[in-house]
């Protein structure tokens, strides 16, 4: 007989965690709909692991509530919550075989032997470890141990699966393989996945939505695309992908733009956010929107002269590091297909252009709590 499928929805409401004097998590609020692949992303010490442990039940919140499937589980012990965790060091029991490891949770719940056998086989099949079911963890590679830890958590059919930087110990190639594996397993099991990592590329690869955190505060919660194209502050812009930050002095204001005049036909246009003349704004431009050998699309073009500091040929594209006349150093990504002629050399003078529509204004890396932002309209 089957039970009603878990909705797997998690709500974090104004959760704060203090360790003595240290404030690890500061008034954090967000929501994870059931079945979503949700990541918490940020540098070390940003509070992401602490938040995850509070969802698991290994830490109690100092303030606020953790709501799982509509029930307040803030102080419910971890053994009684319907969530399971995959630990950073896997935590496999060394004195048990893979099969016994995976079946451990079921054995505690006193599941019938036949059902237990079926569910363990099913879990091992999901992670593709059936052939090694009778081995001990010591005789498994890192990636294989990883998959056993996953199966051990999934076999319990939890409402949510919590993963604490599980791929950190693997080499690059294996890590990329496992990222796609996790994505596939998530699609197969329709369980809520809550993933913690400091690797922004990893988060972008796997997640449907990401909460970017810094110093215990949520900076922005959005889809990968929205985080990249509409970061809410300089920290998020700098953390996700590469970004070029340019200071714009408002020499004049026209047509909804502030313009900084630099002489010799050079100017920087930025969207006017009401700063007025003789004010200053900071803008961000992504490296692929800046053009050096070709013209950008758009009506209102910024152009600045500069000198090439570094050329990095990457096969399909070239990364150019350029020192602008304004003093900033920017990174420009150009496709090599568009290049007609030889690669530029270090020291060559260039003109960097971009459309004002491609830039957006940011304030300094702020510590502002952000509510969930709506998906970007297409």
């Amino acid at each position, binding site marked *: 007989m089957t039970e009603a499928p878990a909705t797997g929805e998690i709500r974090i409401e104004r959760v704060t965690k203090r360790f003595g004097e240290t404030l690890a998590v500061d008034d954090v609020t967000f929501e994870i709909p059931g079945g979503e692949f949700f990541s918490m992303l940020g540098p070390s010490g940003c509070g992401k692991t602490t938040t995850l442990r509070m969802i*698991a039940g*290994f830490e109690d919140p100092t303030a606020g509530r953790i709501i799982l499937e509509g029930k307040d589980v803030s102080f419910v*012990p*971890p*053994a*009684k919550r319907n969530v*399971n*965790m995959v*630990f950073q*060091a896997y*935590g*496999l*029991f*060394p*004195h*048990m*075989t893979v099969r*016994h490891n995976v079946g*451990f*949770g079921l054995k*505690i*719940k006193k599941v019938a032997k036949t059902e237990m056998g079926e569910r363990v086989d099913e879990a091992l099949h999901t992670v593709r470890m059936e052939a090694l079911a009778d081995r001990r963890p010591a005789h498994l590679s890192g990636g294989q141990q990883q998959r056993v830890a996953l199966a*051990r*958590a999934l076999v*319990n059919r939890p409402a949510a699966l919590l993963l604490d930087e599980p791929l950190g110990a693997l080499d690059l190639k294996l890590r990329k393989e496992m990222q796609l594996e996790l994505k596939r397993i998530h699609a197969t099991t329709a369980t809520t996945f809550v993933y913690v990592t400091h690797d922004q590329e990893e988060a972008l690869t796997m997640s449907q939505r990401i909460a970017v955190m810094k110093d215990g505060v949520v900076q922005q919660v959005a889809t990968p695309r929205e985080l990249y194209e509409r970061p809410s502050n300089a920290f998020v812009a700098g953390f996700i992908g590469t970004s070029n930050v340019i200071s714009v002095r408002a020499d004049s204001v026209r047509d909804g733009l502030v313009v900084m005049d630099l002489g010799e036909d050079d100017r920087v246009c930025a969207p006017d956010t009401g700063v007025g003349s003789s004010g200053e704004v900071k803008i961000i431009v992504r490296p692929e929107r800046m053009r050096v050998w070709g013209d950008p699309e758009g009506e209102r073009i910024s152009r600045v002269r500069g000198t090439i500091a570094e050329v990095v040929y990457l096969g399909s594209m070239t990364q150019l590091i350029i020192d602008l006349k304004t003093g900033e150093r920017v990174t420009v990504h150009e496709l090599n297909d568009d290049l007609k002629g030889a690669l530029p050399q270090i020291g060559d003078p260039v003109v960097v252009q971009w459309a004002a529509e491609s830039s957006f204004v940011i304030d300094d890396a702020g510590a502002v709590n952000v509510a969930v932002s709506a998906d970007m309209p297409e």
Partner: protein
Amino acid sequence: MASLAPTAPQGHQFRARAVKKLRPVAFLISPIGVLVLLFVAPLMILVIMSFRYESLYGFHTGWTLDNFRLLFTDPIYRGVARDTVIIASTAMLCQLLIAFPLSYFIAFKAGRWELPLLLLLVLVDELNPIVRIYAWRMLLGREGLINDFLMWTGIVHAPLDWLLFTKFSVILVLSTSWVNYCAIPIYASMKAINPSLFEAATDLGAGWFTRWRRILLPLAAPGVFVAVILVYIPLFTDFATPGLVGGTSSYMLGNSVADLMVTIGDWGGGAALSLLLLTAMAGISVLAYFLTKLNQLD
């Protein structure tokens, strides 16, 4: 002078090479020599003595198996052996009941007190055992501290007789002897356990009893076996403790050896009993070793 082409070693060159080869051997001769002299030789003497009539007051001489035969046929020895097994095994169990939680606390819960506590544990046994056992006599006697306290608080109206010179006192004192040899191997095997295993077990729904039974106990078992090997043998063959606090009711095999050698003067008998005890203890060690291997299976 020597040419560049290889030639057979000359006279003095040969001696030099031989000396070079002998140097490591010379290094080993001294410790091996000490070992042979102080350990193997006395053991051999013991073995020889056990097969001969060596009694100071006896009339026979020559080789014999009587020493061993007496040990197996005389009913006294059977009783003493039974008492020894009971006392030593009970004391061993008590030690494990003390050492296991102690090791757990030091390994997982002590935090920055871990090293000081370990040091304390080692220091506890630095005291001369005779002095320590005498201290117990002062505690347990009819006019000892414990009886004084019990009578002063009114719990009893006459001093308890059974505290000293009984099996109870021997077991009590033995339970606290060599506790550090018991606790430290268990502590070591617990340190080897990754603490996140307990979190993983909790996450999967395990309560404290399941964590203890399915995670802690199987992984600490090798340490427990080492502790038993290290401690059971001294407990079994001890004669100072039963001699000083055991009185007449707890006479152990260690006492038999002491009496045979010193009081009765039957060196042959004493040697035979010693050899028998040695063999039995070796057998226990081998058994324990194989039991550890058993732990490798699920």
